[in-house]
């Protein structure tokens, strides 16, 4: 009896494993003799048309962590599919940059592995170091500023925005214009950020911005933590993860988040929502695009990047209230979508300084150690 039970269990497991063998594991396909996983530019592929043909032959594209409402990705993906007939499989939209790196490593060699990535810059840098990303330079490579891309083309900035304060004018009578305003009595139990600064990029950026507003610098994030400590002590800070849902429920009438997400995710459902970039802190960050070195659909992946860095793609992001990296070029060339441009929150004057990877790493270490102590 014992044996038959054991046998049944083993047989069942074996059957499942065999069934699993049936479904696809694949290696990057070579279409028409060309190995697209080694192609480093459209010219290298034999021209845009050759790339399009190869991508269409692959027929699918796997993307990851791209929510529909994030920088207008939903519309961009639909437009891409309509233009090229390539089906897009969108996995784990709620996921994080780390999830993307994990997926690349763990699903290596499988049909389901992500082809293209949209990640935080520090993740792109470490991913490139680990050899996970393929070098590729889009046709409009030169329009991407030098400090916003990897020299070999392993990653390149895509879109970004500023840390902004969004608020419900029905609940806040005097509109906030700066971080300092948030410490006022009117903001009791009202101010939230989008998550845990040791996990969520937008929340980390909020702390960095608060540091700049509070006498700190890109090298010194401590004043940012002090600011949130003050906010907590004044009773103004709501530790809940702010989101369109918490705004709608009235839980977080003031939300510190990326300006493009305030516009596309919050304002779209909460029409009276107002967004302002704080006058005392100008902090912006851009996400990065990258191609998986072992992508199951390498030609489609490269075509996707070409699409994103075409006028259509860049304007697509602009329509999501995000600032595409090639915005200046678009404005200069007059190809920018003027209505979308007009809707962007007023950008502060002057140059924005971005923290270097080293500055960010140091700041993150400080935040990890002190966030709970400051706000707990």
């Amino acid at each position: 009896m014992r044996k038959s039970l054991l046998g049944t269990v083993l047989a069942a497991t074996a059957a499942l494993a065999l069934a699993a063998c049936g479904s696809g594991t694949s290696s990057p396909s070579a279409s028409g003799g060309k190995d697209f996983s080694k192609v480093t530019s459209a010219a290298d592929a034999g021209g845009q048309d050759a790339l399009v043909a190869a991508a269409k032959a692959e027929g699918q594209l796997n993307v990851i962590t791209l929510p529909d409402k994030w920088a207008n990705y939903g519309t961009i993906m639909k437009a891409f599919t309509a233009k090229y007939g390539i089906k897009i499989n969108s996995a784990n939209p709620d996921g994080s940059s780390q999830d993307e790196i994990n997926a690349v490593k763990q699903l290596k060699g499988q049909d389901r592995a992500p082809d293209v990535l949209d990640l935080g810059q520090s993740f792109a840098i470490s991913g490139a170091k680990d050899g996970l990303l393929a070098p590729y330079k889009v046709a409009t490579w030169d329009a991407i500023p030098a400090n916003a891309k990897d020299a070999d083309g392993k990653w390149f900035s895509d879109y970004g925005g500023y840390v902004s304060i969004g608020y419900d004018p029905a609940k806040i009578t005097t509109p906030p214009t700066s971080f300092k305003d948030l410490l006022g009595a009117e903001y009791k139990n009202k101010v939230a950020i989008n998550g845990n600064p040791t996990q969520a990029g937008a929340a980390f950026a909020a702390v960095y911005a608060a540091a700049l507003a509070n006498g700190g610098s890109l090298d010194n994030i401590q004043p940012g933590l002090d600011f949130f400590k003050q906010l907590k002590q004044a009773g103004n800070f709501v530790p809940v993860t702010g989101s369109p849902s918490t705004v709608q429920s009235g839980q977080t009438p003031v939300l510190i988040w990326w300006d493009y997400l305030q516009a596309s995710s919050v304002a779209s459902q909460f029409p009276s929502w107002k967004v302002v970039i704080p006058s005392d802190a100008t902090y912006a960050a851009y996400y990065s695009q990258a191609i998986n070195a072992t992508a199951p659909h390498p030609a489609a992946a490269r075509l996707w990047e070409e699409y994103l860095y075409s006028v259509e793609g860049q304007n697509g992001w602009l329509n999501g209230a995000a600032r595409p990296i090639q915005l200046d070029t678009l404005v200069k060339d007059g190809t920018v979508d003027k209505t979308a441009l007009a809707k962007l929150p007023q950008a502060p004057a002057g140059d924005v300084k971005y923290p270097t990877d080293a500055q960010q790493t140091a700041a993150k270490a400080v935040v990890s150690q002190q966030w709970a102590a400051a706000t707990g």
Partner: protein
Amino acid sequence: MTAPAPSGGRAGLRVGPLAGLLPFALYTAVFLFVPTIAIAIGAFVDPATGGFTLGNLGIAFSGIYAQGFLTSIELSILSAVVPGVLGLVIAYAVQRSGSSGLRRVVSTASGTFANFGGVPLAFLFIATLGSTGLVVGWLKAIGLDPYEHGFSLYTFSGIAIVYLYFQIPLMVLVITPALEGLRPAWREAADNLGASAWQYWRMVGGPVLLPSFLGSLLLLFGGAFSAYATTQALTSGSLAITPIQIGSFLNGNVLSGQENVGKALGLGMIIVISVVMVIYALLQRRASTWLR
């Protein structure tokens, strides 16, 4: 088949009976131990060089992470004992009501709620006990705003209240079969001998239930210890507990290249639960002695 071995009479275990554990052993070896070992190994690997290092452990057991372990343990003990007792009381009340319809509703509801957590649960409580929540609104209407008196859903105590939502049902579900083992005949016999309800519980019901009760507490502790998504949504890291810290390393958008510290924290959790299990085993031994 041979007669069952007399308890306590043998010096060692015979191989034959152990073979009966083979399917289980194989299954857990493949699907539980292999991943666990992968994590344990990862905890000692230096991500930059791939070589052995104690650095991850060093980070994992110091500073805010050590604090995280302490807070997690505190929260888990609280979220094991309180729901344990409440769950027992509720399960007993249900059983004594005698209504099989009620029992069915409660057992299925318990199964559902025991696994309900994460963002949806967080939202349920924000809608109820958040500063603009329904119940808070009722209390404000009678002049008792809890937020004015220092209560906040987003603190240790608030989280503990939220944890009850899945811990109590788990307790109910798991203790009910044990309660059914309390034969009514025993209660009758105790009554006939003149025992009060309290004496019955102290000398008959309690000791019989104790081993199962302790086992359930252990389960509740483990569940509370590893609960993650709900607290994350409600506190955004302002409450330092270990699963959230693991999440920052393994599943985040900020700290890159440090997954192995996350694995070291995971290893830490395994160590903590192992210690708890040793304590549990010692308690069980005392609790079960009279049953032999």
